[in-house]
């Protein structure tokens, strides 16, 4: 109980999250949602491992203002994306379009997956091979032999069973 209390105290003391606080006015919730989507999906060109929403740099601030302005000017999503790519290249998109320079980026996961599957398949087939030969189809003669053996054992079993009971 005491631990629980202490842990909840920790939550109360947690530092405020470092989100960017700029208050832009929007007419509709759709505009606000589009703005949020853009600042999450576009990368800050200066601090290259952050998106626009997480960056404090001056250029990120400018780009956020620009996105807000373009949304308020009723620009379409494609127009905004094209505007950004024309200035900062594919780099600014966290999900770059597929073209010759981004092909490696898009295709390497698939290639790695295929390599993984190949390795897995080889390991699996190696492990499965001994049992696979054993469970191969029996010839009719072998089948007969097997049946004989099984029935013989059944007879023995019932015999010993009844003997055991009679004693």
């Amino acid at each position, binding site marked *: 109980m005491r631990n629980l209390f202490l842990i909840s105290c920790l939550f109360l003391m947690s530092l405020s999250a470092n989100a960017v606080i700029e208050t832009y006015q929007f007419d509709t919730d759709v505009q606000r949602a589009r703005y949020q989507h853009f600042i999450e999906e576009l990368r800050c*060109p200066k601090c290259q491992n952050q998106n626009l929403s997480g960056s404090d740099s*001056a250029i990120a601030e400018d780009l956020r203002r620009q996105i807000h302005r373009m949304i308020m000017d009723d620009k379409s999503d494609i127009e905004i994306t094209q505007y950004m790519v024309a200035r900062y290249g594919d780099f600014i998109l966290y999900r770059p379009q597929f073209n010759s320079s981004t092909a490696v980026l898009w295709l390497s996961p698939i290639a790695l997956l295929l390599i993984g599957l190949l390795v897995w398949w080889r390991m699996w087939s190696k492990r499965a091979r001994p049992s696979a030969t054993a469970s191969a189809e029996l010839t009719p003669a072998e089948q007969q032999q097997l049946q004989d053996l099984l029935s013989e054992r059944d007879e023995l079993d019932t015999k010993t069973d009844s003997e055991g009971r009679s004693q």
Partner: protein
Amino acid sequence: MQRFKLFIPLLVFVALAAVFFGVERKIQGGDYAPTDLPSALLNQPLPVFSLPALDDGRILTNSDIQGEWFLLNVWATWCPTCHYEHPFLVSLAEQGVTIYSVDYKDEAAAARRWLAEKGNPYKATIFDAAGSFGLDLGVTGAPETYLVDGEGIVRFRYQGALEQKVWDRNFAPLIAKLPVLGAGQ
């Protein structure tokens, strides 16, 4: 064979260490900068602008910045690296290189004082207070320097301070290859 398999992790480690060491050396030597981005403007015309000049406030447009080839330097007084590169720009201008500049998101008075004190290597300075031309150029910070050819096409963009080493390695070979204006026609 089983024994060899035990050493695979070690071999992978050694290979990776060699790669990382090589890249790190290239970064130290200035041959490779992982944070540099290829400019989206490369081989594209300089964006259209219409902005006041820093010195007298007259409106400058694309037709005001021209030359056989020229540099367009993006700078600001708030930028420490610009302070560092300024003497080299002055010496380039003394050698006859045409340099225009964009004073990026700056205060006019401070910028004028800067040029008065340190010398003015620029043929004209575009005063971009709001950073709108910077945005069109795809500027990520200052300083940045663009090499523009006689047709107004951007041929190279350098992010960071210009200095002799950068000039010799990146700019001089490109400039040597630029077609002389009018010679091709």
